[in-house]
């Protein structure tokens, strides 16, 4: 036990002391914050160009109802000649100008033509479209004798505030919030399993090619060396998570306190949304939805989710790093690992892809259930399901299977590892690995 502690210590310290570890630990949160900042800055600085729309209204009904917005000015050309105006536009070649031609039968056909010298931005086109829609609808409503004011009052926009009924009483839940969390966790576990698993593999290949492995296993058992490496690197991963959480919290606290001081920023952002938004009523609706999401994200039990995340991160890491260790011990260099990598990656990759389609749509269905039971897929699958609520017996069974899976994988990996690390100059096949498995220790 003392020796395995020494190995863990060396594996851990030699990695944590590396400059690249410090770099990724500090750069990744900065990168996220930086990306966030760039988005905000870009949103603040992007002043949409003013566009002038010349309107030739052959129907004579719509033009007066087109109101200017902060970016679009409508200019009605009384008695304008279509051909002359078209040619004039072409000669001027101005980008921020276009010509809207409303035919006389627009109320029936609901078709208009817009001429541009270049390509108009989607925002401009859709704004014009919605202005026209509103105008036409209002005219049609008035024509059918309905009072627009009454109609506005009775217009429905339902926002579901879903409550989950649990033993503790009702609590807010929202599948939007849950989906966001599971999306994030699935990606996190998928990526980290590969990052740290392949670090284990590289470490073993390094020991094998530098031939120090023979010196070390004359002092410790191959199993101790393998487990020491796996645990040491796993702790490096946990350290990195911890530092990321602490740094992100610290940075976001600093950032949000800066933001609240700068009220102007907030105002600017709000007015941006208003400009780009189509109608005031819809804005209110989506704001409502947003607040519901925020509320449910706050309502999610992060303590529970983080505990489950850590259990599955550790279990999944131990299973996959044992597999990676097996591959590392069997080959002489990294290029030979290819043939063994695919079968290792497949289960996780399939789960990862299924989690965003089948599992998100039906988190309690049979596919979700089985994927969250099989130890090779459960680390990703269970994390996707957790925010939707998983019965306790399923969670317990899955964790037991995960532990059994880890023990089984480690047993197989250790038997191949102890032979593989002493084999040089052979490109191993699966058949060969099977043979190694049967060798006497």
């Amino acid at each position, binding site marked *: 036990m003392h020796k395995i502690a020494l190995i863990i210590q060396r594996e851990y310290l030699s990695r944590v002391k590396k400059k690249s570890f410090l770099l990724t630990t500090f750069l990744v949160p900065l990168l996220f914050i930086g990306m966030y900042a760039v988005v905000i800055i870009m949103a603040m600085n992007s002043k949409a160009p003013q566009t002038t729309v010349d309107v030739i209204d052959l129907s004579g009904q719509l033009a007066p109802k087109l109101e200017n917005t902060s970016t679009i000015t409508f200019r009605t050309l009384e008695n304008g000649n279509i051909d002359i105006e078209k040619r004039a536009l072409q000669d001027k070649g101005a980008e921020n100008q276009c010509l809207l031609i409303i035919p006389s039968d627009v109320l029936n056909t609901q078709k208009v033509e817009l001429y541009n010298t270049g390509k108009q931005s989607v925002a401009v086109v859709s704004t014009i479209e919605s202005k026209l829609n509103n105008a036409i609808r209002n005219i049609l409503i008035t024509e059918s004798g309905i009072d627009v004011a009454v109609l506005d009052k009775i217009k429905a926009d339902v926002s579901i505030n879903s409550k989950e009924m649990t033993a503790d009483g009702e609590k807010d839940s929202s599948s939007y919030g849950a989906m966001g969390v599971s999306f994030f966790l699935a990606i996190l576990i998928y990526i980290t399993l590969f990052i740290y698993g392949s670090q284990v593999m590289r470490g073993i290949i*390094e*020991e094998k090619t*530098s031939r120090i492995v*023979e*010196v070390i296993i*004359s002092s410790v058992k191959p199993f101790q060396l393998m487990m020491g490496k796996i645990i040491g690197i796993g702790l490096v991963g946990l350290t990195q998570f911890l530092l990321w959480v602490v740094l992100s919290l610290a940075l976001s606290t600093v950032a949000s306190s800066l933001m609240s001081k700068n009220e102007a920023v907030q105002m600017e952002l709000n007015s941006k949304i208003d400009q780009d938004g189509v109608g005031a009523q819809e804005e209110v609706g989506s704001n409502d939805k947003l607040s519901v999401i925020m509320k449910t994200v706050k309502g999610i039990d992060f303590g529970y989710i983080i505990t489950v995340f850590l259990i599955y991160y550790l279990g999944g890491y131990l299973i996959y790093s044992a597999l990676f260790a097996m591959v590392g011990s069997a080959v002489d260099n990294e290029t030979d690992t290819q043939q063994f990598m695919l079968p290792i990656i497949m289960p996780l990759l399939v789960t990862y892809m299924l989690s965003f389609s089948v599992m998100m749509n039906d988190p309690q269905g049979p596919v979700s259930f089985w994927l969250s039971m099989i130890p090779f897929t459960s680390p990703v699958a269970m994390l996707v399901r957790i925010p939707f609520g998983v019965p306790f017996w399923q969670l317990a069974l899955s964790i037991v299977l995960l532990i059994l899976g880890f023990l089984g994988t480690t047993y197989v990996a250790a038997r191949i590892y102890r032979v593989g690390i002493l084999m040089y100059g052979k490109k191993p096949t699966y058949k060969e690995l099977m*043979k190694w498995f049967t060798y006497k220790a």
Partner: protein
Amino acid sequence: MLEINHIVKQYAKHRALDDVSMKVESGKIFGLLGPNGAGKTSLIRIINQITAPDEGEIIFDGERLNPSHIGRIGYLPEERGLYKKMEIGEQMLYLAQLKGLSKHDAKVRIKHWFERLEMQTWWNKKVEDLSKGMQQKVQFVATVLHQPDLIILDEPFSGFDPVNADIIKREILDLNKGGATIIFSTHRMESVEELCHHIALINKSKKILDGDVRDIKNQFRDHTYTIQYRGNAETLHDTPTLFKVLSNEPHDHELVARIQVGEGQTINQVLSYLLPKVEIIGLQEVIPSIHDIFVKTVTSPNSVYHA
């Protein structure tokens, strides 16, 4: 010190060791010889408990070999290796602690050895910054740091220049004088004759020769002598039973002949035959070198010798 009893090691279709037995006596330098692929490394790995034998057992100091003996064995593998990016001092501490030394003891001993072999300035260097010979020296120190009772050296002189090879040879003899038993696996026969008390020869998975170096040499004597003499070269020719002339050539102002004494005859009889005919200046028995014995036994693999 070490009793190796009927060891068999089977790898799939290849039998690496076939009923190999030998005894390594305490305080001796034991030469383990054999051509490449004979099974030496397999045997050494079994002694180091890196692999286990399929049959047979090894007795270490009266007990069946078990993990508690690991700290009493020092092993220098033929394929050397260290962590390339790790500092030398730190690396030595790590390896010594894995052998069961406390951090403090390890530090004291590393300092002692570094001073002894003039490596004090290497402590903070990385392995990749050292020459190959320097790396070998580091590895040798790592092997003996924990003062093992049994030291197993697989080709210890490969990669050393003659000056450093001599330093290492001196250290090996010193360790042996201090009571350590040494198993010494090599192809360099001259170092075997210089260092070893006892040798065992493995060929094609089987032990074919085992014994005290002097006894083996005696056993391989084939009654060949060189005679320096003055006189007529024609006088020295084969006789029907007494002796056979293998060579007979002038050397400086004298003649030197190699003769093989016939079955049942003695050198004295040969001398009394020759004395009246030529003036004898010198006589020496030709004792085969370990190199000759090695080549002879390996190229006629069906014979098994016992000394």
